[in-house]
C-alpha cells in the first residue's frame, strides 16, 4: 500500500477500483466498453418496444402514446408552421426570455442580499425571517396571487420565476459567506486590508464556488417553475403548447414540447457545470444544498 492511500479509503462513489473477480457478474462493476454496450442495448430495446407497441395493430392506442414517427413529424411540422400563433422557435424564445429574465433579476437582488446577510449580522436579523417564512411555501403557490396582482402577462411569470429563484440565490450566498474560514479574514486584516478589500478580494472570491452552485440551483428551480406558470398563465411558451396539445389530443406535439423542455433543462444544467469549472476551477464538484 503506497502512502497516501489508506486501506480505509474514506469515500467510495460508484465503481469499485478494479473488478473484483471473486464476485459474480451481477455484483461486478462492468468495464467501460461493456457499460456502454449495455446502455446502448437498453436504449435500443426501449425504442423497439415503443415502436412495436404503437404499431397500428399494437397494444397501445396512439391516443395514449403515439408512434415515434408521428412525434418526429409533429416536430418537423412545428418547426416550419406556426402553432398557436408562433413557431416553435418563438415559443422557445418566449420561455427562455422569461426564465433568464426572472433568474437574472433574482440574482441581481439575491446575490448582494445574501452576501450582505452573511457579512453584516444586522442585515441578517432584518431579512432572514422573511426568507424563513417564504421558504416553505412552494413557488407555484404564488401563481394565483401573481395573476391576481399582475394579470396573465409576462410580468406575472417573471414574478413567479423570481420567487422560485431568489431563495437559492440568497441562501447559498449567505451560506457561502458564512462558511469562510475566519483565519483568512484575520490574515487579510493583519496584512492591512480594508474592510472593503476583504469583502471583495477575500470573501467573494473564496465563496465563489458556493455562489455559482446557488446560481445553478436557482436556474433549475426557475425552469421547473416556469413550466408550471406557463400551464396557467401564458399565451406562448413550451408549457402553454403542452397544455393546449393535451386539450386538443395532439399527442405528438405534446411529446415534442415535453422533450424540448427536458433538453433545455439538461442544457441549463450542463451549461452551469461548465460555468462553475470556468469561473472557479479550483472548486471540487458537488456543493449540494
Amino acid at each position, binding site marked *: 500500500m503506497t502512502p497516501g492511500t489508506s486501506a480505509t479509503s474514506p469515500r*467510495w462513489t460508484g465503481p469499485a477500483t478494479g473488478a473484483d473477480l471473486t464476485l459474480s457478474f451481477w455484483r461486478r462493476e462492468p468495464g467501460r466498453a461493456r457499460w456502454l454496450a449495455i446502455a446502448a442495448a437498453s436504449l435500443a430495446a426501449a425504442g423497439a418496444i415503443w415502436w412495436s407497441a404503437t404499431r397500428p395493430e399494437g397494444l397501445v392506442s396512439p391516443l395514449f402514446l403515439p408512434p415515434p414517427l408521428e412525434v418526429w413529424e409533429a416536430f418537423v411540422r412545428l418547426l416550419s408552421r406556426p402553432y398557436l400563433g408562433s413557431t416553435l422557435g418563438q415559443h422557445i424564445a418566449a420561455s427562455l426570455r422569461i426564465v433568464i429574465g426572472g433568474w437574472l433579476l433574482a440574482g441581481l437582488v439575491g446575490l448582494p442580499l445574501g452576501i450582505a446577510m452573511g457579512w453584516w449580522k444586522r442585515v441578517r436579523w432584518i431579512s432572514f425571517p422573511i426568507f424563513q417564512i417564504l421558504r*416553505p411555501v412552494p413557488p*407555484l*403557490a404564488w401563481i394565483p396571487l401573481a395573476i391576481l396582482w399582475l394579470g396573465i402577462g409576462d410580468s406575472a411569470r417573471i414574478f413567479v420565476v423570481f420567487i422560485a429563484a431568489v431563495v437559492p440565490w440568497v441562501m447559498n450566498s449567505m451560506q457561502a459567506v458564512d462558511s469562510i474560514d475566519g483565519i483568512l479574514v484575520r490574515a487579510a486584516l493583519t496584512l492591512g486590508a480594508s474592510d472593503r478589500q476583504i469583502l471583495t478580494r477575500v470573501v467573494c472570491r473564496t465563496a465563489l464556488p458556493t455562489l455559482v452552485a446557488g446560481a445553478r440551483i436557482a436556474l433549475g428551480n426557475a425552469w421547473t417553475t416556469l413550466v408550471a406558470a406557463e*400551464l396557467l398563465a401564458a399565451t406562448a411558451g413550451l*408549457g402553454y403548447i403542452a397544455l393546449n*396539445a393535451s386539450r386538443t389530443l395532439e399527442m405528438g406535439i405534446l411529446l415534442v414540447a415535453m422533450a424540448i423542455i427536458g433538453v433545455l433543462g439538461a442544457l441549463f444544467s450542463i451549461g452551469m457545470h461548465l460555468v462553475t469549472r470556468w469561473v472557479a476551477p479550483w472548486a471540487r464538484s458537488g456543493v449540494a444544498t
Partner: protein
Amino acid sequence: MLLLLWWLATAIPELVPPRVLPSPFDVVRRFVALAGEPFSGATLLGHAVVSLQRWGIGVLAAMALGLPLGIALAWLPPLRAVVTPGFELMRYIPPFAWVPIAVLWFGATTTTQAAIVFIAAFPACIINTQLAVAQVDPILARAARTLGAGPARTLAKVILPVAAPTIFTGLRIAFSNGWMALVGAELVVGKQGLGFLISQGQINDSAATILVGMTTIGVLGTLIDAVLQRTQRLVLPWRPVAARPTE
C-alpha cells in the same frame, strides 16, 4: 416586525388597496370562515385532507418503487448500466411538464395528482437510496463476507443499517418535492385540494383566500418535514456516514 409592517401598509387607507393585499385581520377572518363553512365544495380541512391523501398515495408509491430499485441499482452495477440512459433522459423533464400528459392518461382524477407527486418524488428517492448504498465503505461488505455472510445477509445486516440515515434524508427531500408538485398539479386540474382552493381564490378575486391557502400549504409542508425529522431521530438514532444527499 414583518406583521407590523403588513398591518401598517394595509391600515393606512389608500396606500395598498385591499384587493392587492388584505389586512392581516381580513386574512384571519377569512381563515375562520373557510374553516367553518365549505368553499368550492369543501371546508379548509376538507381541502387539506384531499391534498394530503393524494400526496400520501404518490409518495408511498414512490417509496415502494424507489427504495428497492435504488438498493438494487447500487448493489447490482450491470443493472445500473441498463437503467441509466433512460433515467438520464427523463430526469430533466420537470414534474409539471407531465401534468398535461397525465391528464390525458388518467383524466382529472386523484390518480393524475398522485402520478405527479410520484414523478416528483421518485427521482430523489431512487438517487439518494442508490447513493447511500453505494457510499457504504466496501470494507464493511468485505469484512462481512470474510466472516461468512452471504450477499442477502450482508445487505440486510450490514449495508442497509449503515445506509439508512442517508436514505431517510433522501426520503425527506422526496416528500417535500412531492408536496410542492402536488400544489402545482392541483392548480391545473382537479376539483378539490389546497392548490384548487387558491386558484379559486384567484378566480373570485379574493386575495385573502389565496393567502389562507398559501399559509396552509406552507405550514403543512413544514409540519410534514418536522414529523419526518422527529421520526428519523426516533427510528434511526445513529448518525449518517458522511454523505450528501442531492436535490
